[in-house]
């Protein structure tokens, strides 16, 4: 397992270098002199010269890239042009909020998507199955911002059951320990904080989870259909197992494996959706941070957040491969 992990991580290196080239090139894609564009109108020649020197724009492209890499290795993602603080520090401050949202949404999507898929996969062409198919197609065709607005309008504006936006009631003051509000609330035993955080979490989670649940439901349905026609299912039935045992222990277990890949792949798309969701719900994560950086033309922050999103995606794909090994003995054997 350890050697598999090592090989998997080593294989990531060439991809990672290319990812870094792309992220690095982003600022260089800006038409004109990056320093002039970054500082905007009204910058003095001295300021422009200083920024050119700081960004080493006078050096050749490959040297600039090497310096960028060396900086990254020391945790230097540059300085935010807006706040003047190190980009990495600003990102780490906001990362827990995004992770909290993404993890909750993934859990909800799994809890909703897999049962839906199993139910319609074991009853193909039933009314429930048709309903699932339409639900999942609407789910993947729905712009995240539209679903967010509709949910906000119904549950926050009209019914008043849930808060419109934010992460925690403005009347609650708390010292962050881990940065994960719910976890912090549980650690310190402040259940009012936990309750408030959950209320704020419901709508953005629903928006992010909808897309993943729809994709997952459809995928599990199709794999269930295939698995349930396999010989070992017939054997299990012939042994006299109950329907529930056949479906859960033999059918589901074998359809779960490909489903994990889908969750991993779609996790990335969900991170993209987080930019829209966080912006609409004023969720203080890195998605909204990136959106604000775009409005402010804060390119070091755009670079940093793009890189972090990509790293999260790559880590997820490694994690998915490892999970594969845990769940499938055949794969585990090959990993050794």
């Amino acid at each position, binding site marked *: 397992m350890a050697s598999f992990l090592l090989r998997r991580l080593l294989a990531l290196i060439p991809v990672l270098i290319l990812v870094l080239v792309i992220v690095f090139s982003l*600022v260089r894609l*800006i038409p004109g002199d990056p320093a002039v564009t970054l500082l905007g109108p009204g910058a003095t020649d001295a300021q422009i010269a200083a920024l050119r020197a700081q960004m080493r724009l006078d050096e050749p492209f490959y040297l600039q890239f090497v310096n960028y890499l060396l900086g990254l290795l020391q945790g230097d993602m540059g300085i935010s042009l807006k706040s003047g603080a190190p980009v990495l520090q600003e990102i780490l401050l906001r990362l827990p909020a995004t992770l909290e949202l993404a993890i909750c949404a993934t859990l909800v999507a799994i809890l909703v998507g897999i049962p839906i898929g199993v139910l319609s996969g074991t009853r193909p062409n039933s009314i429930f199955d048709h309903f699932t198919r339409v639900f999942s197609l609407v789910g993947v065709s729905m*712009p995240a911002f539209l679903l967010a607005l509709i949910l906000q309008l119904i549950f926050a504006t009209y019914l008043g059951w849930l808060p419109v936006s934010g992460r925690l009631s403005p009347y609650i003051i708390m010292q962050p320990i881990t940065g994960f509000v719910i976890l912090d609330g549980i650690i310190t035993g402040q259940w009012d904080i936990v309750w408030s955080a959950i209320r704020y979490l419901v709508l953005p989670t629903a928006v992010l989870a909808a897309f993943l649940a729809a994709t997952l439901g459809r995928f599990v349905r199709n794999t269930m259909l295939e698995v349930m026609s396999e010989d070992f299912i017939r054997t299990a039935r012939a042994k006299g197992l109950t329907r529930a045992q056949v479906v859960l222990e033999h059918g589901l277990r074998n359809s779960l494996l490909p489903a994990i890949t889908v969750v991993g792949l779609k996790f990335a798309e969900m991170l993209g959706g987080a930019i829209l969701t966080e*912006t609409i719900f004023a969720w203080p994560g890195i998605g909204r941070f990136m959106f604000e950086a*775009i409005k402010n033309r804060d390119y070091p922050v755009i670079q940093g957040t793009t890189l972090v999103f*990509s790293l999260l995606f790559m880590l997820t794909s490694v994690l998915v491969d490892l999970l594969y090994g845990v769940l499938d003995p055949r794969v585990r054997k090959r990993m050794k």
Partner: protein
Amino acid sequence: MTALVHFLRKNSLATAGGLVLVAVILAVIFGPMISPYGPTKLDVLNKLQGPSWAHWLGTDSLGRDVMTRVLHGGRYTLAIGMGVVSIAFVVGVLFGTLAGFAGGAVDMIIMRVVDAMLSFPALVLAIALAAAFGPSLNNAMLAVAITLAPQFARVARSQALAISVKPYVEAAVSLGLPTRRILWRYVFANGLGPLLVQASLSFGSAILQTASLGFLGLGAQPPLAEWGADVSANLQYMRESPWVALSPGMAILLTVLCFNLIGDSLADWFNPRRRNEID
């Protein structure tokens, strides 16, 4: 033709999607011609009116007819879908076919770049690129096309790999035909099916992503009646006049849903394992 009829009869959802899509296309072509209003014609005295006979979907904060704007936006949206998918198709297929046919170092380099581009969440990369290019509809379309191209490259490469070992390609090579001609006449032409499925599946994402960029202010700029931009421009009136922002949003949903219904059924159709299930 009989294959098409058979396909439509077996795929009621795809047929429904196709019919609605035809209706949408007709509406956005002829609707603006019939509508008595212009998409940017101001009428501030009648701003934020609810749906009525005069204004089927009401008016926005500047008194513009929402229905007219949605219909005009549809023209942009369909053009965006076509434009983005075409660019992604040409770029992706070019590199993918080359990689699969040439093999070796060329294949390695092209596919590593493809892997790297697929290591970004698509929307994140599109947003970052659009931010670098500068906010405009053309730049947003280019950014989305760049993020979709790697998927075409993947499909084209696997097609080229499978086809380049076929006897007719070997025959063409031994006849001394120019590589460009072999690629075009044999490799590309014979691998077209799955690429067209990929194209039909990409339409939905192309429209969704460009609309998302528009929503974030990185795509079409006002007063252009693009759907995504129109949703975000009317957010502040959500409470009193939700139809103004929701109408273009629902139009996106409807159009993307139609494309996905068709693309989905086509994908099933081209997949032999699933095709038996449908028949």
